[in-house]
């Protein structure tokens, strides 16, 4: 049914339609509305045969999810930012034990300094944890990805994180087509676990494995993500057949045919980039876009195909590894390794901690990529002035004070005590 609704609510409704049997989460901004919505739906009986478990922390939440998933229940949780960090040990355990938990990550920056706004730092902090990670471009795609996520996770028995841009999507009210229960049931069969802890037939899951088999266990985790790489496009095709929408898949291309420059990005920023591409194309600038949906597994081969033929690729990261560079940029570089006539790859870091990513700034940086390509990271809309002043201040005295607080004063009117 078409409705005008907040992204968190349509996402919660989609999860409800997937018939979760256990939901266990701890509130943290900006993910909270999703689990609040689900809590309400469980209480009113809109979602049946589901236990909503209240816990004391994110670590408790994911630990309880591990237990319920191991007991054979379809299990869901959601978190953001520091909440995901607090889960970290259990994040690795869930994937190491091959438990198909579905988690929504309402993506948000990581502190310090504390920041509740959107970027992809939290998702990136767990990119090597063995979970599948898919990024939604719109709230419609968030709905559709969650329905595909349960099917995908359960097919390969691995956990999946559906990354939905915090605030930008979770708090946006827009048009979403929420499918019916019958439609979702026809796509998503009941959970048939590959392993169940059962007192009648006792087994152990998560035992210690020594040097004799650890490599092989890890190899098979990777094997399952390789299986997912093949399964993701198949599921997207089946989804399109049943729901008549292009959602999910490994990646999507937009106006890349004959494009000299191809932008690569993940999440909601793709919408703004598409508008910029239309404007620039109208001005005769040859530019296209690859929207990466599946970040883990990383579709290197598909990406190589999508980028073959362009002269330049500009990767727009919504986070970066300090001391290294944009994570997505590094992965795109990896995909282009050993490729003949690979495009020149440029890296833009945009929208950190909720800074708006504007059409004007994107247009400017794409033009600059063509005329004055740069090495390393370009920080979009960096306030050069306050950075230079702080660098000078730091180098002029030992006790220069806390950087975050100094910068806060520099962006406001109050002078910093020099």
């Amino acid at each position, binding site marked *: 049914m078409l409705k005008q609704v907040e992204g968190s609510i349509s996402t919660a409704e989609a999860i409800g339609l997937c018939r979760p049997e256990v939901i266990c989460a701890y509130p943290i901004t900006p993910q909270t509305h999703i689990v609040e919505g689900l809590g309400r739906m469980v209480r009113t009986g809109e979602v049946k045969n589901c236990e909503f478990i209240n816990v004391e922390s994110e670590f408790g939440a994911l630990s309880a999810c591990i237990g319920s998933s191991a007991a054979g229940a379809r299990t869901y949780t959601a978190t953001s930012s520091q909440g995901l960090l607090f889960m970290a040990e259990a994040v690795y355990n869930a994937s190491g034990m091959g438990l198909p938990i579905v988690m929504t990550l309402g993506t948000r920056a990581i502190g310090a300094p504390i920041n509740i*706004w959107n970027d992809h730092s939290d998702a990136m902090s767990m990119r090597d944890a063995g979970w599948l990670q898919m990024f939604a471009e719109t709230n419609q795609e968030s709905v559709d990805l969650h329905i595909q996520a349960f099917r995908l996770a359960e097919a390969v028995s691995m956990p999946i994180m559906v990354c939905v841009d915090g605030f930008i999507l979770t*708090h946006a009210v*827009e048009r979403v087509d929420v499918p019916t229960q019958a439609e979702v049931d026809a796509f998503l069969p009941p959970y048939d676990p590959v392993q169940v802890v059962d007192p009648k037939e006792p087994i152990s899951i998560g035992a210690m494995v020594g040097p004799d088999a650890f490599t092989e266990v890890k190899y098979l985790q990777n094997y399952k993500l390789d299986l997912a790489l093949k399964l993701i496009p198949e599921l997207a095709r089946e989804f399109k057949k049943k729901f008549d929408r292009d959602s999910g898949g490994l990646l999507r291309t937009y106006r890349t045919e004959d494009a000299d420059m191809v932008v690569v990005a993940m999440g*909601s920023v793709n*919408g*703004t980039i598409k*508008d910029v591409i239309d404007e620039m194309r109208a001005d005769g600038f040859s530019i296209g876009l690859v929207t990466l949906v599946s970040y883990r597994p990383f579709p290197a081969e598909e990406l190589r195909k999508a980028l073959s033929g362009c002269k330049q690729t500009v990767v727009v990261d919504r986070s970066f590894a300090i001391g290294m560079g944009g994570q997505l940029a590094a992965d795109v570089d990896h995909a282009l390794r050993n490729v003949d006539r690979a495009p020149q790859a440029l890296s833009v870091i945009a929208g950190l901690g*909720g800074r*708006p990513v504007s059409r004007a700034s994107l247009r400017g940086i794409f033009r600059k990529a063509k005329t004055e390509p740069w090495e390393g990271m370009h920080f979009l809309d960096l306030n050069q002035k306050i950075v230079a002043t702080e660098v000078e201040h730091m180098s002029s005295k030992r006790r220069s004070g806390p950087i975050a607080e100094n910068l806060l004063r520099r962006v406001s009117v109050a002078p910093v005590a020099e």
Partner: protein
Amino acid sequence: MLQIRIHGRGGQGVVTAAEMLSVAAFLEGKHAQAFPSFGSERTGAPVVSFCRIDDKEIRLREPIMEPDVLIIQDPTLFKVIDVFQGIKRDGYLLVNSNKTLAELGLAQVAAKLPTGHTRVVAASEIALKHIGRPLPNAVLLGAFAALSGAVRLVSVAAAIREAFSGKIAEANVAAATEAFEAVSAASVAA
């Protein structure tokens, strides 16, 4: 695409206003997108919300920097922030106040906009009369429907009834209708 920026203070229903407006447009078969200015919201603190309305899918996610319509729910904001930033030359201005634009010191700003595109509505007083509380958000949406013609009053009323229920919904609808009629009558007179 029509872009509306709503300025007010925490507690005045600024975010709800943008959401209701998007629902009204949706009910008319249009695409609409409403979102808040994601701050740490506190009662009384300046709050901004945004609404885009278009005939096709809205992909843009940047904040509204060049609004076609400005709705100011609290006239004390003029002294605090530059609410007029980026307003289009053929834009609309709707202010909640019982004073005139001149008395508010806005004559110069208003003069830059086309005749008939600016309006002051005593939305808080209308809200007090109907709802019993000075909540101007729904009232101004009624005025917005009359001023811009972008959505119909019946759609605004339906959106109000989706956001609220019972007596509160009906009181807000009555208040929005009074504002709609006041602005419509003034337009005819002009």
